[in-house]
């Protein structure tokens, strides 16, 4: 277990180092940052002074070392647009994104699992087929277009739910959460549903395939022969056995939900870090783009590490094989 952990941490550090090099090249090698920072009217003297101040007159290797040094202190430069530290800007918006992503994930599980079970138990029935069709649709429809349709239907046509923003948030331990207020919940509903759609389809597919597979097994037939109620068979014997792949995939997909929230946040004007990324790309605010990149890589690595450890704990064979 310790060896697995150490090896994984080592790999993660290597990936982070590669990303840091890419980030460095992105800022310093593609175009001269001085061109962006100094006004075009500046003369040669001013340019030289600015380059010396930024350390750009040093050799590339020295520049890289000082870049890594600043990175270790959490200094990723200052946003061109906001004039604030880039890393702080990204971290400030992390809770909003996490709230949206986690809510979407839980929604996907709560809807996808029962539907997948139903479809897996009666694959030929009308309901089963309808659920399968819904899951195919969920895979095909582009997320952003579904978001627009949701706004068109529930905000414009019926006027039931707000079309954007985060609503009233309640601070909990220094982090503001929208889910705790009724207004915040109303604002959360549409974006979470939008973000959850793709994952719901995925869970339906996994659950129904797993159920079909498990329901055929001898121990299920034996449980029926023993006279167990079908509620107990489904709730205990089938559910337990289809959960392992679902939990793993859910863990791995949490990262992709956070990444995909870029789209949902833009549509619903959700003040998370995905919307910040899009705004920064449009305004060529490179330090913020790089800060986002490093934060998201870190988030991904932590999630992957946790999933691997969880998996090794759930299934002893996996830990032993490594």
């Amino acid at each position: 277990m310790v060896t697995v952990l150490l090896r994984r941490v080592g790999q993660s550090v290597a990936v982070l180092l590669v990303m840091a090099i890419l980030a460095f090249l992105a800022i310093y090698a593609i175009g001269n940052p001085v061109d962006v920072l100094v006004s075009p009217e500046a003369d040669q003297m001013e340019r030289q002074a600015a380059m010396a101040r930024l350390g750009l007159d040093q050799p590339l290797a020295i520049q890289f070392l000082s870049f890594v040094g600043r990175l270790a202190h959490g200094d990723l430069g200052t946003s061109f647009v906001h004039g604030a530290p880039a890393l702080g800007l990204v971290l400030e918006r992390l809770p909003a994104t996490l709230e949206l992503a986690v809510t979407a994930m839980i929604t996907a599980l709560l809807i996808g699992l029962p539907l997948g079970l139903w479809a897996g138990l009666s694959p030929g029935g009308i309901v089963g087929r309808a659920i399968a069709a819904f899951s195919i649709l969920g895979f095909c429809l582009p997320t952003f277009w579904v978001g627009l349709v949701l706004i068109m239907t529930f905000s414009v046509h019926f006027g039931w739910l707000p079309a954007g923003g985060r609503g009233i948030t309640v601070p909990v331990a220094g982090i503001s959460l929208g889910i705790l207020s009724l207004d915040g919940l109303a604002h959360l509903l549409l974006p979470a549903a939008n973000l959850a759609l793709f994952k719901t389809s995925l869970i339906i597919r996994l659950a129904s395939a797993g159920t079909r597979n498990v329901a055929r097994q001898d121990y299920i037939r034996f449980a029926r022969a023993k006279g167990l109620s079908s509620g107990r068979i489904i709730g205990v014997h089938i559910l337990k056995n289809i959960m392992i792949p679902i939990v793993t995939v859910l863990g791995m997909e949490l990262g992709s939900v956070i990444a995909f929230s870029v789209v949902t946040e833009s549509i619903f004007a959700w003040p998370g870090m995905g919307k910040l990324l899009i705004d920064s790309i449009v305004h060529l605010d490179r330090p913020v783009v790089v800060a986002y990149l490093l934060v998201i890589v870190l988030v991904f690595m932590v999630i992957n590490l946790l999933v691997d450890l969880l998996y090794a704990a759930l299934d002893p064979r996996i830990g032993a094989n490594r």
Partner: protein
Amino acid sequence: MTAVGPGVMPAHPRSWRLIAAARPATVIAGLVLVAAVLVAVLAPWLSQQNPYDLAQLDVIDAHLPPGSAMATGTARYWLGTDPQGRDMLSAIFYGLRTSLLVASVSTTVALLFGMVTGLLAAFARSWVDAAIMRLVDLQLSFPAILIALILLGLLGQGVDKVILALIAVQWAYFARTVRASALVERGKDYVQAAAGLGLAPLRIALGHLLPNCLPPLLVIVPVQAAHAITLEATLSFLGVGVPVTEPSLGMLIAGGYDYLLSGEYWISLFPGIALVLVIGAINIVGDGLQDWFHSTGER
């Protein structure tokens, strides 16, 4: 468009039987796809106006709902007009052109690049294989949209940059698939026989190995093409994709987004339906293709 539908497969004595054996849904989807490609190619001749020639636009016709008549002339705007008085139907035809062009170019280049690197990895083994596959693994561990966004954030915007970003995202899937099947194939007798005959490694790789690695590759081509269309539309919708001068379907949808809240649904809705139709059709055709490959494999 890349040749993905059974209807556009290269001429083959069995191709008519293939169509006859296909499910009705696959045939319909294939027809939709062929129609979409035709519309994209023939857009300048099918549209009643060039939606990007400002001289042909009339501001009096702006914001018209679907079915409205033109202020001057006899034609009708069947799908309504946008704030510039642009006919949405014509705009969709032209948008389809950009969307399909970007997706087909990027998928084709990514396929070729992935094929070369995948074969190289399978043949060279040692550190070349390790280096290529590490890169592939690293890339596949992050969502495609994230990689594309970061690349566009660093490279800047434009049609060429979008195509570049899509290639960068897609090649890894192809490389992994080709390597996997090439590793299986290279252990087979016919490759040994070819090597025993003294054929050059390049000839063995391209002439013997590659054709046998194609079937699993062709199955993921439609999936990737649909993915590319979705991704391009998403990027353009977010405002970091194609420029305003060459709008794709995603861009049209984004343009209508601002008017959605005032009830002018048609500017966003109809390009979206066109997009969903194309993506759905490609996926259904891809499924049909996959079934066909599986059934021929079993025979």
